[in-house]
């Protein structure tokens, strides 16, 4: 991502060219005629892209002011009266709202603790497979759930775990005579939430580690085995250090998204019995913002989410840079 650097040859061409006095003269002087001419088609291509980012990504950021306003539908964003930090006070002073932030952090944190190492282990195990067909077969199978919608995964979960008709409960009923409400008890709900996340994405997330593993210099292993290191020692001393940069980069990205727990997974698994532990920021924003049209409070919650995310990415990157592994 280096700045466009006019090559020395184009600078020379520029000097030879007769100095025509036009408005874009400084542009010509800075970049050279040839580079400017090359940029014309590129800019024709790029203008729609600039418009897209301005309209759909940057313009909505001005809409964030409604977090500090008492938004009224009729008066619009700029006509609505200011409300200062009222919405934010509401977030932090209402116990229920605070609970939602806590739930988000808890579910998200648990997903990272449980979900992050599993793809690494899976990739390491796949890397030990010598028979190519088996490797390919297993890979094909573990990537599959990634392409299924959360609606489908939610449907599968309900089919398997539902109390009255679930497959698992049919078995349990036969063995113990009584069914268990897996989806309505907080602990088992969280367990199912975490497991379904791992089931859906672990295989897919292993791809990047597998790519990193293939890049390791094979001669390192040969040297190590001559020195008498066994497979386990080789894994600890060669394989793991070699993929550490990849691990750190992915961990930074994960931590950055700590606050934005995906809406879909929670929404399709949620039910009223476990609302106490399953209401998170994204579902809350949907409910109060879209369904109840309380735009100010929902925007404030969203802004808080984005800001914490920003701070988390910046600090995670800082820490990683300390170890020489930053994202930028």
């Amino acid at each position, binding site marked *: 991502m280096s700045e466009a650097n*006019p090559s020395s040859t184009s600078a020379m061409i520029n000097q030879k060219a007769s100095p025509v006095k036009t408005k874009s003269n400084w542009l010509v002087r800075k970049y050279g005629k040839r580079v400017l001419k090359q940029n014309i088609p590129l800019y024709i291509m790029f203008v729609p892209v600039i418009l897209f980012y301005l309209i759909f990504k940057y313009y909505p950021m001005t809409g964030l002011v409604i977090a500090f306003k008492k938004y009224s539908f009729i008066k619009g964003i700029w006509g609505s009266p200011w409300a200062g930090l009222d919405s934010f006070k509401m977030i932090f002073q209402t116990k229920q709202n605070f609970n939602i932030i806590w739930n988000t952090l808890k579910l998200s944190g648990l997903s990272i603790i449980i979900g992050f190492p599993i793809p690494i282990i899976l990739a390491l195990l796949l890397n030990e497979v010598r028979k190519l067909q088996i490797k390919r077969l297993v890979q*094909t199978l573990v990537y599959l759930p990634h392409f*299924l919608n959360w*609606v489908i995964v939610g*449907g*599968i979960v309900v089919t398997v775990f539902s109390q009255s*008709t679930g497959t698992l409960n049919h078995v349990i*009923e036969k063995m113990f005579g009584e069914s268990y409400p897996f989806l309505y008890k907080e602990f088992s709900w969280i367990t199912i939430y975490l497991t379904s996340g791992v089931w859906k994405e672990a295989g897919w997330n292993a791809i990047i580690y597998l790519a990193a593993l293939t890049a390791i210099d094979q001669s390192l292993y040969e040297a190590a085995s001559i020195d008498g290191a066994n*497979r386990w020692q080789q894994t600890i001393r060669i394989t793991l250090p070699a993929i550490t940069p990849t691990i750190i980069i992915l961990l930074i990205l994960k931590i950055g998204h700590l606050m934005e727990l995906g809406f879909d997974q929670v929404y399709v698994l949620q039910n009223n019995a476990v609302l106490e532990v399953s209401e998170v920021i994204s579902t809350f924003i949907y409910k109060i913002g879209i369904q109840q049209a309380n735009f100010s409070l929902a925007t404030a919650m*969203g802004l808080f989410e984005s800001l914490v995310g920003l701070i988390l990415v910046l600090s995670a990157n800082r820490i990683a840079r300390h170890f020489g592994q930053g994202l930028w």
Partner: protein
Amino acid sequence: MKHTQGEKLFYNLNYIFLLIIGLSCLLPIVHIFAMSLSDKHALMSGTVSFWPVDFSLDGYKALFKESPIVQDFTNSLIITVVGTFLNMVFTILAAYPLSKRYFIGRSFYSFAIIFTLIFSAGLIPTYLLVQKLGLINSYGALWLPGLITVYNLLVLRTFFEGLPEELEEASRIDGCSEWRLIIQIVLPLSLPVLAALTLFYGVGHWNAFVNVLIYINDSSKLNLAVLVQQMIQNQSLLQELTNTQPELAAAITPEGVKAAGIIVITLPMLIVYPFLQRFFVKGVLIGAVKG
């Protein structure tokens, strides 16, 4: 190379373990498939495992007769095809200039684009914009705000950067214009990565759920994902059926119809998946090369 006894044991256990993991990804879908083809009594007694018991198509019959599934299937197709086309056009338009070292302002634009990844306005301001543009209840609301996915853009840019510069120089000397260069040389050379990105965007649109829930209220414009989710959540389909077609209603259970719905939305994906698999793995790897 000779393996010790311990290593042999490890390799074999590893095979077994990985095969179990692999099967655990497939079997739940097989189970739903078996349920969708089983008879009511078998479903209610819970005897269906991975093979249909007392084969029956009643679940599918009820689904196609009483729910708008054909319409919603068509809607899903339209959303996916048009949306993916727009995504690809815009991603190419963005990735090509950004891959050129002489593109003026390149690092500024790159930063501005990556910034949207770590800080965004969030749901409500975006919703208000879409509303202001009059896109509520139109598929424009599904297509426009997500024209470019930053990750896919970076994958394509990295690929374009890797194309040999000599090729471009040679074409220029032969008098090839920038447009011809892109259409006749760069894009044909990028087919594998373009296929991968098409698949990523396509799957995204096919699976679209939240955005449809938020932006589309008109029930005739909903897609499969929302329909299936509604079926899983409530039983209204069954009640309706009891009123209009008591015979069919007596032959089905909610579970059978739900399973059928899940299969209808999953099947197209399962069919294209084996053919496209090698493309998408390649696509991910290209993105991974530079971290």
